[in-house]
């Protein structure tokens, strides 16, 4: 066998690295099934070990919600069943991706997958699935005037802080009010996964503002540190994460858009502390940046477990 035939892993790791990383690699299928991801894990060990942060990284990975194909199919089924349970015979329902009009995103990906969910068989037509919230409003507008009550079921792949859904639902409410049909349109929300602390925003939209009729999500994601530790471990782990993040570049340039600032993403966007990924889909910015931030503090490219554009 020649060297050319051997799949070369660079670099070769020392014994301590192998003995420290292999237990978590062995127990985590989404890491061990991918050579680039496992190499990124070894790199993460190298930067965290010197500062004793490795146990925190192991804790985060052990509690990480990784939506693989099986979990996705199971969740998709639950979402579709819930939507069907909401249906009333004399109403019209539209399943609408939470996406802005011109941006491809995870909500559209989820919507597309939902189309052929078994519980929807014979319940919806292709036209009932709409790939942006603005197109959903246009659809309602095109239906006017109508007597049968309309229902918009908003679909999102992940709810982080809840700020985005609040903004979009308030926008939708205003748009429908302006059209004079708000009383005749119900708004419901389904997400593949949501952060536990976004529940406050959802409750506010449902119970206080009465903008949202129902909400359902089969997967709840707890905050990686705050929801797992009590004092004094909580403060200690917060400090360890700050120390880990101090090894990242303060800014990362994007291809054309504005550069990303680390200070906006410390502990994840809006300090969300998310530990969640839906397979290989674009990672939410709510996830701790140590898992996806592209550059280290010397502006050298990092091998990262996940990627995000």
């Amino acid at each position: 066998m020649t060297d050319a035939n051997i799949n070369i892993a660079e670099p070769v790791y020392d014994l301590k690295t192998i003995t420290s990383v292999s237990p978590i690699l062995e127990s985590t299928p989404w890491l061990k099934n991918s050579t680039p991801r496992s190499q990124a894990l070894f790199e993460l060990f190298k930067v965290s070990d010197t500062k004793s942060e490795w146990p925190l990284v192991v804790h985060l990975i052990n509690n990480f919600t990784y939506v693989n194909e099986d979990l996705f199919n199971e969740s998709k089924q639950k979402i579709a069943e819930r939507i069907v349970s909401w249906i009333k015979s004399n109403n019209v329902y539209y399943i609408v991706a939470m996406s802005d009009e011109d941006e491809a995103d995870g909500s559209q990906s989820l919507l597309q997958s939902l189309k052929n969910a078994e519980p929807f068989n014979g319940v919806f037509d292709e036209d009932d699935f709409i790939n942006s919230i603005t197109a959903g409003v246009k659809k309602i507008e095109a239906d006017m005037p109508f007597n049968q009550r309309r229902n918009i079921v908003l679909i999102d792949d992940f709810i982080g802080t809840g700020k985005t859904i609040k903004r979009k639902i308030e926008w939708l409410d205003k748009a429908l009010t302006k059209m004079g049909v708000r009383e005749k349109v119900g708004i419901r929300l389904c997400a593949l996964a949501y952060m536990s602390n976004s529940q406050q925003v959802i409750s506010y939209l449902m119970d206080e503002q009465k903008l949202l009729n129902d909400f359902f999500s089969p997967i709840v994601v707890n905050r990686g540190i705050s929801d797992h530790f009590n004092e004094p471990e909580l403060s200690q782990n917060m400090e360890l994460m700050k120390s880990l993040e101090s090894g990242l570049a303060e800014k990362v340039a994007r291809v054309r858009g504005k550069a990303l600032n680390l200070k906006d993403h410390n502990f994840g966007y809006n300090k969300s502390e998310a530990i969640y990924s839906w397979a290989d889909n674009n990672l939410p910015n709510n996830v701790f940046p140590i898992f996806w931030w592209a550059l280290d503090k010397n502006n050298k490219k990092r091998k990262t477990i996940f990627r995000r554009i």
Partner: protein
Amino acid sequence: MAFQITKRIILSELFKSEAGVNLYNLHRKYRLPFNEVILVLDELKSLELVVIEDLMIFPTRRTKEWIYLNRSSIFFAKNNCEWKDIPQEFLTEKLGINVVPALKTK
């Protein structure tokens, strides 16, 4: 194919060894991606072909016999490139030597 190479190396070292194989030495000597080492060991464990103690692996009673019986599929299997095979429904009649296909006319 890369996974297959890792498997070949591990099995060939197991076949040669009497006192077990050190996984770290294997990783260093052959530069094997460690996740692939773990995946191969998962498979060998399920087949009861290996016993793992820390970073050492040991053959079981049936390991050598199993490797010997399966040697052709393990060590001599070629990458079949199944993607290169054209499905039957897309094949047409082969042209003969020095035959120029007739042009289609309306």
